[in-house]
Each structure stands twice: as C-alpha cells, then as structure tokens.
C-alpha cells in the first residue's frame, strides 16, 4: 500500500500542470518512502528523510515556486518540445529494468534476515558514521558549506 502511494505520488509529480500541486505530490511521495524505510527497519534514515527532505528541501522548493511561478505558466503547455523522444528513452530504460529483473530474479532468496533490535539502530549508524565513514562525513560537511556559499552568491543581486 505504501509503495502504491509512493508510485501514485510520483505519477502526480510529473503530470500536474500546477507546480505547487507537483510539490505537494512530491511531499506525499517522500513520506510514503519514509514509511517504506520504516518497514525496512531503518528508523534513522526515515527520520532523516522526513526532517531534511520533506521538511527542508520541499519547503525550499515551495518558496522558489512562489517566487518564480508567474500566472501564465499555469496556462501554457506543460510538456516540452521533445517529449516523444523522452518518453521513448524512458520506455527503453523501463525495458532494460524488466530484462535485468527477469534475469536476476533467482539471486534473491525469499526469506529475510531476522529483524534487528530497533533501539540500537541510531547508535549503530552513529558508530559507523564516526568510525568507518569519518572522512566522508567531513567531506559532506565541506560540501554543505560550499553549497551554502554557492546558493547565497547565486541569489544575491550584486556580487
């Protein structure tokens, strides 16, 4: 059910004429995917997804949509000039995915790993972040710094 909701949300994102509707559909999709993470015993990633993605990035998108969307964009065409080629390429991608799934179906056994205890998930992720992935953690903070600088400079009126 959650996956049906996620896919329906995704469909709504790419087909709505109004950009605000698309943003709201994307929020629905993000929450559905967060629910799927919870089903996969990943509470920390689900929390990060809801707080950062659905709470931060989508609010940013909504702000920019309010800033940028003129009234006339709602009445114009909504698919661009080369949309048959895009659709064809996506169908080719879908066919590729199908063939990969049919070939690799036997590799996935049906029984699942026994569920881990849930109270230590965040702690274990913290251990891994500060242990194995310490370098990537620092680089990610540097990336965020660069992104902040870039966004502020791009949006200034006079540099």
């Amino acid at each position: 059910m959650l996956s049906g909701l996620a896919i329906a949300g995704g469909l709504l994102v790419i087909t709505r004429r109004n950009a605000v509707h698309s943003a709201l559909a994307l929020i629905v999709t993000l929450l559905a995917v967060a629910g799927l993470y919870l089903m996969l015993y990943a509470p920390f990633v689900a929390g990060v997804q809801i707080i950062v993605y659905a709470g931060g990035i989508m609010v940013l998108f909504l702000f920019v949509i309010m800033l940028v969307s003129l009234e006339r964009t709602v009445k114009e065409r909504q698919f661009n000039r080369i949309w048959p080629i895009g659709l064809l390429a996506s169908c080719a991608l879908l066919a590729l995915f199908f063939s990969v799934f049919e070939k690799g179906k036997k590799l996935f056994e049906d029984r699942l790993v026994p569920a881990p205890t849930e109270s230590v998930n965040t702690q274990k992720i913290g251990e891994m972040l500060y242990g194995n992935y310490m370098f990537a953690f620092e680089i990610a903070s540097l990336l965020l710094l660069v992104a902040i600088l870039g966004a502020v400079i791009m949006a200034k009126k006079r540099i």
Partner: protein
Amino acid sequence: MADIGTLHYLVVAAALFVLGVIGVLTRRNVVIVLMSIELILNAVNLNLVAFSRMWGNLHGQVFSIFIVVDAAAEAAVGLGILIAFFRNKETINVDEIDLLKW
C-alpha cells in the same frame, strides 16, 4: 499475501526511478525537472536501504544518509541558479532557456 521480499522494494525503486526520468525529460517547467531529480535520488535511496536490509549490515543506510545530504546541497544550489536566471530572463520553461545556442 506473499512475504515482502527485497525484490518488491527494488521494483518500487525502479518504478520511481523511471517516473523521475520521464519527469526530467518531458516537463517544461524547470522547477518540476528539479523535483523529478529528487524523485530519482529517492528511488536510489530506497534501493540502497533495501539492500542494506538484505545483507543485514548498515552500510547502505549510511550511504543513503550521505545521498540525502548531497541532494539537499544540490537542490539549494540548483534553485539558486534558477532564481538568478529567472531574474534575467523572466521565464522558467526549458524550451526558452537557450542563451547558449548558436
């Protein structure tokens, strides 16, 4: 109903990915193109977390946290570029953003 195996999550992730690709390639509004890119990133995250569950360790989840961080950074910068462009040309259709054409 059958047990929900890893393959089901991979199918959902693939469907979201293809929907995102269709959104990137077909829409005229630049903001919706950026949102479809976020859809693609979410599909990849779902894939990673499903595999992390399958193997029983947490590497996939840590990687997906990094991907969320990266998506936040790229969304911020992309929207900044969009705003800067919109200030000059007053349009958000990808068909009309052709200042570099010969």
